[in-house]
C-alpha cells in the first residue's frame, strides 16, 4: 500500500478502483442493492451504458474486450440481475475473454436467509468464472478489485465475478489502492522453457509436412505479427479455429482458412496429412477435431499454450511448451530453421485450387454467402460480430480478415443472442470502425431489445439479419439427419424487422433481391445511424462443406444447393 488514505464509502471506493484500473466504460443495469453505487455513477467520470437486459451487459463487455484487448466490465443487481449475467459470463469463460462482472448482493447480515432478490451468484458462477469473490467487508474491496482485474487479464484470460453486498457499498473505509497483487496460488507461466523451445525448433526443422493450427490464444496474447514471422520463416501453412480468425491474414499465401466441421477442405486435408501439427493457443475442441482418434493421424503434436491444463487434455501432445504465445513464438522464431516443405506447400496449394469454398449464386434469391462477400467489398476493414447459426459460419468462411480483433463470435459456448450486444461493446470500444452484427433471424430476437440502447446512446452498429425464416443451423441438421422433419425450427413470417427497427427509432432497411444487397449495405454505412437490414435470403441454403458429427475431418461433404 502506498500514499495517503482517504475515508469514503464502499460505493465511492468502487468508482475510484475503476478509475485506477483505467476503466472507460461499464455496461450495466441498476437495482435495489446497487442504489449506493448508481448514486455515485450519477456524476462519475466513467461512462455507464444502460442496457435493456443484463445478459446484454455481459455480452457487450465481452464484445468490448475482444475488440479492444482491454478488460470488459459489466454491472448487475442481486438476484435476477446477477443470474441474467450468467450466459454472458459462461460465453466469456469458454472463449477466455477478460471480463470483470460486478454484482450487487443483499446485505451481509441477510445472506443465506433467502432474502428478497438473493441469489448465490458466486456459487452459481463457480464453474464458469476464472475466479470469483464475495466481498466480506468494505476494507477488502480495493484489494479484491485489484486482484479481479489482474486475474481476468493475465495468464489464460477469463471472467472474474465480484459480488458486493449492499453494506459493503455503504460502509466506510480508508481508501488506498494496492499497487501490486500478492497471490501465492496464481503465477502464470509467461516464458516458454528454453530447452523445450530448442527441442521444438529441432523437431520443426525435421518436418516436411508441417501445419500450424492457431486459435484464439494467439489473438489474446497479441501474437499475430509473431505468428506471421514464424510461419514465413519455417514456411508452414496456417489454419485457424473460429475464434482464431484474424490471427493470420486470410489472404496470405500460407493461409488455409478455418479448419474443422465447417472448415475448408484444404485445411482439413492438410491436417490429416501433416507430419507435424504446431498448435498455438488452441484447445482441440470437438468441432475442430471431429472424430478425435482419427485427428491428424500421422502428425507429431506440438502445443504452445499459456494454460498447462490444456496440454494433453483431448489429444496426446508430444512437444508441449507452456507459455505466452507471443513470447514463445518470438523465441521459437529465433531458434528455428526453415522446414523442407516445398513439395508440401505445393501440394496444399493444389488443394486450395481444387477444393475452394464455393456456392452457387442466384439472380433470383439472395444467397447468404453473397451478402458476406458484398459487405467485405463495401467495407473490408469493418469489425464483423456474429450471432450463432448458419450465418455465423458463412461470415467465418466468406469474409477475409487481415487483422486480429476484427471477427468477434461466440465459439466455445455458441451463444445465440450474443451478436448484437457484443457488437454494441465492439463499437463502443472501437468507435472508429464500422461494426456489423451478422445476425440470424432467430438469434437477433434473443436480444433485439438492445435497439433501445443503441438508439438512446447513438451507437451506430449495423445489424444484418439473415432472414431465412428458420433456426437454420438446426434445420440443416434436421434435413440431413432427421429426414427433413423440421420440428419447431420454422420461425417465418412472425416479425417485420424493418418496423421493429423503426419502432425503436433506428433505421430499418430491407433487401429481397440480389441487386438490392449492395445498395442497402452502402446506405446503412453512409447513414451513420443504428440500422437493421432485413435480408430476405434463400431459405434452405446449407453451410458447406461439412464434417458430420463423429466423422474424421477429412470425411467432409459438399452440401451445396443448386438453384
Amino acid at each position, binding site marked *: 500500500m502506498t500514499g495517503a488514505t482517504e475515508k469514503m464509502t464502499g460505493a465511492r471506493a468502487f468508482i475510484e478502483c475503476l478509475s485506477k484500473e483505467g476503466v472507460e466504460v461499464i455496461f450495466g443495469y441498476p437495482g435495489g442493492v446497487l442504489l449506493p453505487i448508481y448514486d455515485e455513477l450519477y456524476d462519475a467520470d466513467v461512462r455507464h451504458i444502460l442496457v435493456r437486459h443484463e445478459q446484454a451487459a455481459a455480452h457487450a463487455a465481452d464484445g468490448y474486450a475482444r475488440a479492444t484487448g482491454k478488460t470488459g466490465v459489466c454491472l448487475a443487481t442481486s438476484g435476477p440481475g446477477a443470474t441474467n449475467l450468467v450466459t454472458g459470463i459462461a460465453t466469456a469463460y469458454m472463449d477466455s475473454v477478460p471480463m470483470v462482472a460486478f454484482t450487487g448482493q443483499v446485505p451481509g447480515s441477510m445472506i443465506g436467509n433467502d432474502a428478497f432478490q438473493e441469489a448465490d451468484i458466486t456459487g452459481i458462477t463457480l*464453474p464458469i468464472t476464472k475466479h470469483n469473490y464475495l466481498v466480506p467487508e468494505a476494507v477488502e474491496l480495493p484489494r479484491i478489485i485489484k486482484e479481479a482485474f489482474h486475474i481476468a487479464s493475465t495468464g489464460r484470460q477469463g471472467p472474474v465475478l465480484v459480488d458486493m453486498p449492499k453494506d459493503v457499498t455503504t460502509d466506510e473505509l480508508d481508501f488506498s489502492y494496492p499497487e501490486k497483487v500478492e497471490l501465492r*496460488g496464481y503465477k502464470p507461466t509467461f516464458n516458454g522453457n528454453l530447452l523445450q523451445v530448442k527441442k521444438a525448433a529441432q523437431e520443426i526443422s525435421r518436418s516436411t509436412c508441417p501445419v500450424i493450427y492457431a486459435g484464439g490464444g494467439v489473438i489474446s496474447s497479441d501474437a499475430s505479427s509473431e505468428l506471421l514471422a514464424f510461419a514465413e520463416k519455417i514456411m508452414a501453412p496456417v489454419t485457424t479455429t473460429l475464434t482464431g480468425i484474424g490471427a493470420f491474414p486470410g489472404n496470405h499465401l500460407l493461409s488455409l482458412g478455418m479448419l474443422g466441421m465447417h472448415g475448408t477442405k484444404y485445411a482439413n486435408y492438410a491436417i490429416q496429412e501433416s507430419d507435424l501439427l504446431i498448435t498455438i493457443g488452441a484447445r482441440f475442441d470437438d468441432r475442430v477435431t471431429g472424430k478425435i482418434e482419427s485427428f491428424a493421424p500421422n502428425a507429431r503434436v506440438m502445443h504452445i499454450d499459456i494454460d*498447462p*491444463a490444456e*496440454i*494433453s487434455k483431448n489429444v496426446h501432445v508430444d512437444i508441449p511448451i507452456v507459455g505466452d504465445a507471443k513470447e514463445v513464438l518470438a523465441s521459437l522464431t529465433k531458434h528455428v530453421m526453415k522446414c523442407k516443405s516445398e513439395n508440401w506447400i505445393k501440394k496444399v496449394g493444389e488443394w486450395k485450387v481444387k477444393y475452394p469454398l464455393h456456392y452457387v449464386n442466384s439472380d433470383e434469391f439472395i444467397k447468404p454467402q453473397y451478402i458476406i462477400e458484398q459487405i467485405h467489398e463495401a467495407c473490408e476493414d469493418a469489425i464483423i460480430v456474429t450471432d450463432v447459426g448458419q450465418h455465423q459460419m458463412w461470415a467465418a468462411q466468406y469474409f477475409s480478415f487481415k487483422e486480429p480483433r476484427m471477427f468477434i463470435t461466440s465459439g466455445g459456448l455458441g451463444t445465440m443472442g450474443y451478436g448484437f450486444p457484443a457488437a454494441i461493446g465492439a463499437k463502443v470500444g472501437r468507435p472508429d470502425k464500422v461494426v456489423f452484427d451478422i445476425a440470424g433471424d432467430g438469434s437477433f430476437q434473443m436480444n433485439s431489445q438492445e435497439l433501445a440502447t443503441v438508439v438512446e446512446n447513438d451507437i451506430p452498429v449495423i445489424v444484418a439479419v439473415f432472414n431465412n425464416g428458420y433456426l437454420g443451423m438446426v434445420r440443416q441438421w434436421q434435413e440431413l439427419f432427421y429426414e427433413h422433419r423440421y420440428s419447431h425450427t420454422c420461425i417465418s413470417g412472425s416479425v417485420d424487422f424493418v418496423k421493429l427497427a423503426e419502432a425503436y427509432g433506428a433505421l430499418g432497411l430491407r433487401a429481397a433481391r440480389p441487386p438490392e444487397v449492395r445498395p442497402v449495405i452502402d446506405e446503412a454505412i453512409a447513414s451513420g445511424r443504428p440500422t437493421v437490414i432485413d435480408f430476405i435470403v434463400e431459405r434452405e441454403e446449407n453451410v458447406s462443406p461439412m464434417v458430420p458429427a463423429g466423422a474424421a475431418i477429412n470425411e467432409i461433404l459438399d452440401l451445396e444447393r443448386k438453384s
Partner: protein
Amino acid sequence: MKHTLAVLVENKSGVLARVAVLFSRRGYNIDSLAVGVTEDPTISRMTIVVRGDDHVLEQVTKQLNKLIDVIKVTDISSDESVERELALIKVTADANTRSEIIQIVDIFRARIIDVAAKSMTIEVTGDEEKIVGIEQLLSSFGIKEMVRTGKVALTRGIKSV
C-alpha cells in the same frame, strides 16, 4: 489406480466448494478428502485420494493448480509417505460379546472410547487395510454406525511438500 494428493490451499471460505465443483464438473472420482488447517493458520491442507490413471491424475493436478486459491499440489502416493486414517465404529455389544470384541480391539491396537449397556464404540487409526480389516471382524457383531475421516498423509523424512 489410487493417488494421494497433498493440496495446500488458502484457508478461506469457499475453497472446499471450488475443489468439489471442479471434481464433479470434470467427472473425477474422489475416494476421500480430508481437510484441516496447517502450521500456518492462513493455509489449509487437503489430502485427496483420487482414482484414475496417469492421464486423469495429470489433469486433476493441473486443474487444481488452476484454482487461484490452490497454492500447491503434490502427489505423495509413493512409499515415501506415511498415511493414516481414523475410524469410529459403534458395534452392538452385550455381556456375552464384550470380551471377544475387546480381544479384537487389542489385536488391532484400537481403543474403546465408549461403552454402554448395548453397544461399544471403537476408535481405530491406521492405513486403509487395517480399518477394513477391523471393520470386517466387527461386522459379525453388528455395526450400528461408522464414520471415517478419510486419509491424511505426510512425506517421510525432513522434507515437506
